[in-house]
């Protein structure tokens, strides 16, 4: 358990929090879009530092959390195909499908291997020419250029036994969906750090222009997040709405041109992609361009592609939309824990439920609302 008093710059953090309190006492709902921010907010108890009028809403920026149940089932079905080696980042192993997860599939004999990088999956393909290697690609624009580069490498090296099950998603359409959601009245956004190293900050201009809301891109230190909150609240109190960049030491306005080039070389938007909790969002997912069809696992194999509803008890959808807090889910911390997750938000350490379970038990905010009977 580590809260702000253990943070090396806790003095500065406390000062900043005080300053935030002095500029506005208007009730404000701010969403942090990135799962890394969610993790840091819980870890340092940042919500407890903020004045009571400011509420942080945890957004859909945890890629593992937003993969819908049906897609997880598809992964398991692909992993069980004969002669397949199914490769994935570790985060996905324990995400429950409708009946089982990848870890159990592995225990039952499927060849499922954790990899650090898509390039490692390609290496496995080279080492096993008689088998077919599928890489489960997931994540926002931080990760998708790496998949694109790997596909280009596979083409260059003439690798025929390698394909990608593509679940890459894009941040801008998901932001639009949050802004268009009638359930959610948000006042501003803490923009994602590393996604923005790739896509830059200009692509967020529509948020102030079309919706009149501020967005501030932030780094991962508690001070970064607090400073971003300060910048947002200041904008609101001065009647401004702009895109600002708190993480200028890493993020540039135009992003990484080379990464964007490979992205548009290899991928194109899907008409629709299904998100857990948020439903189907237009142009929010990526698929391989026809030119790279030979590397598309969805074309090479029979993928069930069924839409499966979440289990009744699971409130992940409401959590991901930011309309419910983890402790408002009936199975939170009882039937659903990081050891026995029912929903995806309890699996990844960036999921709001896991973050709250691991660090939030003492959170004053939770106690406050528990006492006032929100549960």
């Amino acid at each position, binding site marked *: 358990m*580590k809260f702000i008093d253990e943070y090396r710059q806790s003095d500065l953090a406390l000062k900043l929090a005080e300053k935030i309190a002095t500029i506005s006492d208007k009730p404000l709902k701010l969403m942090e879009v990135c799962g890394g921010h969610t993790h840091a907010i819980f*870890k340092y108890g940042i919500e407890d530092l903020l004045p009571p009028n400011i509420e942080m809403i945890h957004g859909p920026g945890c890629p593992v959390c937003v993969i819908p149940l049906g897609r997880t089932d598809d992964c398991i079905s692909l992993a069980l195909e004969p002669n397949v080696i199914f490769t994935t980042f570790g*985060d996905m192993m324990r995400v429950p499908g409708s009946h089982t997860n990848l870890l159990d599939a592995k225990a039952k004999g499927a060849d499922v291997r954790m990899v650090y990088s898509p*390039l*490692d999956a390609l290496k496995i393909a080279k080492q096993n020419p008689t088998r077919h290697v599928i890489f489960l690609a997931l994540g926002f624009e931080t990760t998708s250029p790496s998949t694109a580069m790997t596909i280009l490498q596979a083409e260059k090296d003439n690798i025929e036994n390698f394909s990608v099950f593509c679940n890459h998603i894009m941040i801008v359409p998901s932001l639009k969906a949050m802004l268009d959601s009638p359930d959610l009245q948000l006042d501003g956004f803490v923009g994602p750090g590393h996604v923005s190293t790739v896509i830059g900050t200009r692509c967020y201009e529509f948020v102030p222009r079309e919706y009149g809301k501020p967005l501030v891109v932030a780094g*991962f230190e508690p001070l970064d997040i607090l400073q971003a909150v300060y910048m947002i609240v200041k904008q609101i109190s001065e009647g401004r709405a702009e895109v600002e960049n708190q993480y200028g030491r890493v993020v540039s306005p135009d992003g990484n041109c*080379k*990464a964007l080039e490979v992205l548009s070389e290899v991928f194109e938007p899907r008409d629709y992609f299904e998100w857990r909790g948020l439903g189907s969002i237009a142009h929010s997912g990526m698929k391989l361009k026809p030119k790279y069809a030979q590397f598309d696992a969805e074309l090479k194999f029979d993928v069930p592609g069924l839409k499966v509803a979440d289990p009744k008890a699971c409130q992940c959808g409401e959590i991901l939309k930011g309309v419910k807090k983890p402790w408002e889910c009936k199975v939170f911390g009882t039937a659903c824990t990081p050891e026995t997750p029912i929903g995806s938000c309890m699996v990844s350490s960036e999921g709001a439920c896991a973050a709250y379970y691991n660090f939030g038990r003492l959170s004053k905010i939770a106690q406050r609302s528990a006492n006032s009977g929100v549960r």
Partner: protein
Amino acid sequence: MCLAIPGKIVEIIDAENFIAKVEVGGVRRGVNIGMLDDVQIGDWVLVHVGFAMSKIDEKQAAETLRTLQELGAYQEEFDQFKTTID
């Protein structure tokens, strides 16, 4: 899962395929540098899933390392970085 770990370029091992040796916490592994312009030996980069995604300076690298350690995210990133498939 969008976190990145800072490392130092110690050797260009395969210029044609953009592979460099990057050192993180005393461990070296191949990292793809194809997304960055003119990377030199001695440069610090942020590494995500085996790809260098941006250049940073040494001071930022040290700060980022400390943040990851404090977040409790360092060990996981580091353990993953260490796994090499040869």
